[in-house]
């Protein structure tokens, strides 16, 4: 799985790491149980601060996407949060996205089409 970090992007690096790991899991490129590089190794490889990688990993851990063990490192480990909890969190996040789309003049039909395309894309990748 290739992580592409864009230093000229406005998105912070830790968020780029988090987003791309999430996308890779959703797309089946990273599977549950798969090992992730150690914080120091990834920071050294990408030429970023260890705190940046640590922040991304902590965020992924809080979201129940990875687990971090002091001895064996980080693993993809989807937590068994109740579906209702996940839906509630996603609903909050989507509310913001939908509001932004409305402000920018994107119609409901366009949003539906975009959402369907993304879901289909994920199905294909899997």
């Amino acid at each position, binding site marked *: *799985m290739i*992580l592409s970090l864009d230093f000229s992007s406005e998105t912070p690096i830790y968020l780029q790491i988090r987003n791309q790991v999430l996308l890779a899991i959703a797309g089946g490129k990273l599977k549950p149980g798969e090992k992730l590089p150690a914080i120091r190794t990834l*920071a050294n*490889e990408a030429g970023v601060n260890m705190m940046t990688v640590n922040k991304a990993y902590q965020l992924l851990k809080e979201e129940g996407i990875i687990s971090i063990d002091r001895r064996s490192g980080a693993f993809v480990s989807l937590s068994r949060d109740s579906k209702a909890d996940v839906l509630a969190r996603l609903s909050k996040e989507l509310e913001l996205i939908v509001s932004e789309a409305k402000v920018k003049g994107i119609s409901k039909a366009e949003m539906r089409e975009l959402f369907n395309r993304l879901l289909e894309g994920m199905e294909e990748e899997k």
Partner: protein
Amino acid sequence: MNIFIKIFLLVLLYPVLPIMYFLLMNETKPRKNIVLGVTLPYPALDDPELKAACQQFKRALGKAVLLLAFPPFLVFFADSISVVMFILFYWLLLAIIIPFIPYTKYHRKLKALKQERNWEAGSSQKILVDLKALAANDVQAKVWPVIPALLVSAFPLAYELTAGLSQTHFSILAVCATLLLVTVLFFTLYRLVSRQRTEIIAEDSEYNLVLTRIRRVNWTRFWLSAAWINALYTVILWLSVTGRTVFFVFLLATALYTVAILWTVLKAEFATRNMQHKLAAASPAPLYTDEDRYWINGMFYYNPNDQKSLVSNRVGIGMTVNLARPAGKITMAFALLCLLSVPVLPLWVMAEEFTPLRIEATESAIVITHLSEIAKIMAQEIESVELLPELPAARRIVGTGMDNLRKGTFDVEGYGRGKLYLNPRQPPFLVIYTRQGFIMINGTGEVLAFLEDKIPGFSP
């Protein structure tokens, strides 16, 4: 000067030229998708203009190498060691620098072509990291295979230090310490290989994983072998400078050392390159990043965004430093200093060879001067004096041993170890015994008169 020494020096240094030629010629073959230090998109590799530029570069390089092919043979017309060294060392410097002139020219030409054809590969502010390959390769090279090499390399220095500083010579300690430092450097590089960036040539992590492993295995093997070769050479050199082996053993060991290091480094590089080429060709989705903006003339790496001090070299073999890092700057400064010492050394030897040795007598002492004052023998220190019509056979331990100059510590047949400050072509010779040992000098008229006056019973 002995013809065998000339042949030996020539055999030792001449391979630099074919190696430079071979390595730079190889830069026209796409390494990943880098040609003459310029990153190109895969379809551009078949561009006719690109191929024509590569052909022109090959011809220019061939001409440069041909120009450099003959000057070293001038050594067979030179008699003095400093002139031989002057020819060979200056040639060596030119053999390293000149082939890079056509390289830089055609590198710039390809860069211009790339810009003209719009072959830039998107944002070069991007860094690609293969998470799977990185996680799987997160293994440090083991320390234990190098420990015995470090101990072997440290033995001569430890032996000399335990023998007592008064018994040994500073330059012997310096030689042992320098070679030990080289072994430590090889050990450090051996450990650093596993911290080098993961290779990315494809979307599929399996390809990146295999290539990264192959590169690391080959280069850890190389640095391990180099540490061992250097450790063994340290011992042989120490045995040679302390007079425990014959000079021929030292010559043979030096030749073998050079051949072994060259052989192992080329083996590591080309095993990795071949595999890289095969894997890139086999990959269904090849991938590359354009980092050209961080490479000055395709040779020097300067990337402030990269925290790594060592990266894989783009031109030639092995690794290079990141000049944006302090460690990179220090290493490059040291390398430049070493390169600059190449033209200085023959000039120093020339000064040694062509400056006459002056042996003068003052009111109370014999003063020996060569470039600067090197010895002063006070009359009251002299216990006895012996006059020799011929110089006995002598073997240099530390110092200068030329056809017209013996300066330093020597083992002299029938006399043991002592100091020699003389021109062997100018008999007679004097053996001056003091409490510290003996000193051999030329018996000039001035000195003979001084000794006759100061030493009771001495008559030339």
